[in-house]
């Protein structure tokens, strides 16, 4: 393969945790010693803002401003995470999906999110890279506890549309605390962070499995 392994974090619905997932994924790659770039596709630039707050000693991540248009990753980048804008035109979605090796789709356990997710999946499933299984789709349940009623319903809903949840990210104040400092769970060495990081293993395995 040529170019970096590219992860697109996308969903049409805002507020489902795209930037949290994108920044933590980038943090995980950087902590593993990989040359990492984080592209912010949103004009609001919250991912870039996070990078600005990132402390000096933290594992380096290169920020890319894709707010107006998509660019390219610098040479030698091994992992590229793209935080997609919430409302994307189909053309832009197509271009980004073409670029991606994996699409990470965060969903919240709410009926509104489910409907938006179903629409988004339906739209992208007809796109060639996904239809031909060149691009994997990983659905991530955000702020979700296993074996709760909301979780079971989400499972049933995803099963209906032919997907499964790759992992469930528990609701934790650690996300807000780290985000405020430009950090990720992977920048912390506390036991609490290590426990919360467990939620990420299946997703990281799934991402690394594509190449």
């Amino acid at each position, binding site marked *: *393969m*040529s*170019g*970096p*392994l590219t992860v697109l974090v996308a969903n049409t619905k805002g507020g489902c945790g795209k930037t949290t997932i994108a920044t933590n994924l980038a943090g*995980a*790659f950087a902590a*593993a*010693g*990989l*040359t990492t770039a984080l592209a912010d596709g949103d004009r609001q630039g919250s991912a870039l803002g996070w990078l600005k707050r990132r402390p000096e000693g933290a594992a380096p991540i290169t920020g890319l401003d894709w707010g107006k248009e998509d660019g390219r*990753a610098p*040479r*030698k*980048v*091994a*992992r590229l995470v793209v935080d997609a804008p919430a409302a994307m035109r189909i053309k832009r979605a197509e271009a980004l999906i073409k670029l991606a090796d994996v699409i990470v789709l965060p969903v919240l356990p709410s009926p509104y999110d489910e409907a938006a997710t179903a629409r988004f999946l339906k739209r992208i499933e007809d796109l060639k890279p996904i239809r031909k299984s060149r691009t994997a789709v990983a659905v991530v349940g955000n702020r979700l506890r296993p074996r709760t009623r909301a979780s079971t319903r989400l499972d049933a809903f995803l099963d209906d549309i032919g997907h499964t949840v790759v992992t469930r990210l528990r609701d934790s104040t650690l996300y807000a605390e780290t985000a405020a400092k430009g950090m990720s769970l992977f920048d912390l060495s506390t036991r609490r962070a290590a426990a919360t990081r467990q939620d990420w*293993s299946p997703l*990281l*395995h799934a*991402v*690394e*499995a594509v*190449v």
Partner: protein
Amino acid sequence: MGAKPMEPAPAAAEGQAAASESPTVAPTAEIELKLAATAEMLAQVRRSAVVASAGTPVRKHLDTVYYDTADRRLARRRAALRVRRSGKRYIQTLKTEGELVGALAARGEWESPIRGPDPDLSVITDPDARAVLGVILPGDLAPVFATRFARETRLIDVGGGGAPAAQIELALDDGRIETLSRKDPICELELELKSGSPAAVFDLARRLVAEIPLSIAVRSKAVRGYDLADGRDPSAVRAGDLDIGSQAPTASAIDRILRHCVDHWTANHEVVLQGVDPEGVHQMRVGLRRLRSAVSLFKSVLPGEPAGWLRSEARWLAGALGPAREWDVFLSDLLAPVETAHPGRAELSVLRLLAEEEKTRGYAAAQAAARDRRATDFLLRFGAWLADGGARSGTEDARTQSLDRPIAELAANLLDRRHQRVLKMGRGFAGMAVERRHALRIELKKLRYAVDFFAGLFPGKAARSYRRALARLQDHLGHLNDVAVAERMLTALIEQHASGTRDAAGLGLASGLVLGWHTRAVADSEPVTCQDWAGFAAVRPFWTRGRVE
């Protein structure tokens, strides 16, 4: 993967995609080749004059554990992570082989001492290496297999007396590969060029093979270890695509094509030795046939010296695989449908029994030939020839000029010639006698191989529809040939058992039943075959468009 990649020799084509393209040979490329032995053969190697005179060997015991993720991420990324114990010390090595993730195309090796037997990735800081490893979480890595063997190395100086001087390291490895539940012996020798001419490695290997019946070894220890751990048999390999690039000089294009054919052959070597998957014998034979066809295709630019032995040795080895393949085809394509249509006929059971016997004999012969030192020497001779300059070696001025021109020019001419020849031989196709059909079939096959060799030069629809029309026609004529071959085989089988105690009359009856069945089928499909011929004759050659002035 694992052992050092060997260039340009095909003898140890590392990894299983041996029939895919090989990178071009850099002048500094490491030359290393591997040969399979038995314990007795290793003893003979030690006693042979050239080795014995090299003095006392250095002996080491190598204990190495290979690690990977449960989903074999490192193997998939063509990397190997191992920890080798050396006395009380532990050395960790990460090896990668080209084509990596993260915009990198590095072949690398990162080695560092670590404290214990478990891998310690914190010592690997190079971003190139990290890019291959990706995110490895605690507990992701587990041992896959271990290699434990005694290695004896000697430095051998060759040359002098007119031959180019070179220093070669000879390693004799004796031990085993282990997983939790399985074991597989390691008994092989490796030759590595330390300095001097690459051809010297092959020459030394050929000297050893002349004394000791060493055979071809294809899979590296690492590939064998993974296969053992994952319970995988070596699998048959098809020719794969070849893209030589239209601007490639004719000489290097010829080297690439010949090497592609040789790789196709050797990639199936171990499948043939395994003797389970019939596809192995078939693919190995196809590789050798393509090799012969390539040699004859390039006869105007290839000197007679390699052309002669390439052709004769390939013919010998392909010939030795013939009976195995022919009985395979007979049993599955010819006998089986007749059995289905006549369930419970005793005569057919007798025929099956005898045919299975012949097939078993055929496989034994095929394996003996693959293991024969004549095959080993053939491969080494080819390696030496390539290392010595290949198609460009020993050229006179007149030929040199055409060898420097881009291959696309020659390709269009050669395709044209073979195409015209097929059209000429196919005149009056409908009423054509069987013998002429066979001659046409062979010519079509040559055309097909030439089209395959040059396919990468002519992308596009025209080439695809041409190949489709060609393949369709070949299918029909191929079946016609299978029936003719079956007649020859059955005649011989009947003769062989004419005075035997077995049911000779029943055998005759069963043979007649099978031949009659398929002769009728061939006759029935004649209109379609004629249509396919017309279809092919009408298809436009694709190379006129892509032709370079």
